[in-house]
């Protein structure tokens, strides 16, 4: 049943994790922080920055998916639930170092939430008051998920629902399936 499936995914996640090269997480965290701060200096509105972060993520996701599928050895997901579980248990583990969980799975509505208790992107980060309500610090993750899934024929919309930088206890991203794409529609970089 589901628990054996989850255990298998955990094994896949651990095996993949053990295979890949790793870098110092602090460098990763500081690099991302530097990018966000620079974007805030370069762009006039916080909305623009949020969009840039999402676009950056999208471009990363387009490329990351191949790496992910190759390293993890996973094949096509049978349904949305499996997609959700794979992103949370294997994807997050592989790229962020921490596995997440799936909440509010709704196959009918075509939506699910991804929850991360540990999020290296936000280590040491404290948002200044002027950005607390407007900046979506984690928006790059939304883009990565969108780009990656688009390469496997799923058009999705992602939004950050919860973030510890805003006082929540976890990072939570809502993913909504808008439509399945046919293979004729070309997918590519966004600038």
């Amino acid at each position, binding site marked *: 049943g589901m628990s054996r499936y989850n255990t298998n995914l955990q094994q896949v996640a651990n095996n993949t994790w053990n295979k890949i090269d790793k870098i110092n997480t*602090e460098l990763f965290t*500081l690099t991302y*922080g530097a990018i966000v*701060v620079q974007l805030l200096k370069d762009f006039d509105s916080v909305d623009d920055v949020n969009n840039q972060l999402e676009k950056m993520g999208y471009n990363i996701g387009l490329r990351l998916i191949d790496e992910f599928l190759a390293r993890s050895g996973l094949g096509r997901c049978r349904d949305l639930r499996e997609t959700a579980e794979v992103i949370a248990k294997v994807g997050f583990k592989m790229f962020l170092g921490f596995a997440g969980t799936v909440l509010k799975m709704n196959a009918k509505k075509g939506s699910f939430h991804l929850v991360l208790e540990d999020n290296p992107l936000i280590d*040491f*980060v*404290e948002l*200044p008051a002027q950005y607390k309500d407007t900046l979506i610090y984690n928006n790059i993750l939304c883009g990565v998920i969108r780009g990656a899934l688009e390469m496997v024929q799923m058009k999705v919309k992602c939004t950050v629902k919860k973030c510890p930088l805003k006082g929540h206890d976890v990072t939570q991203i809502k993913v909504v399936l808008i439509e399945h794409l046919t293979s004729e529609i070309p997918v590519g970089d966004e600038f």
Partner: protein
Amino acid sequence: MSIAALAVIGRQNNPLFLQTFSSDVGLKFHFIVHASLDVIEEKVKKKSKGEKLEKYLGLLYPTEDFKVYGYITNTLVKMILVISESSTAKDLDIKYFFDKFHQLFLKVTSNPFYETNSKIESPRFASAVESLALKGL
């Protein structure tokens, strides 16, 4: 409570953080910290001839009511601890305290929104420092 004040001073002797835990007038601690900087400069000068600079600088000077201890990082950020004269804290306890205080400093300065060498205004840092100070020595 034996810890009276904590300060962090930048490399250009610019004040980055000052927290007092005593009912004494805050200005008194400004003077104490200011005087400490001269003592630290002397200590650092003495060691600069090829000798490795130890971060923990020990007792800088005693006043009538307080004992003042210093600590300097490799990036020349200075940390000052002012404790009541009656405190029986040993050197080792104080060194341990400075290490912990240094860790908190590293965390807050790793915030990408913190401008290096600017005043530390993080509420998270202030409350973490308060907790650390309340634990005592």
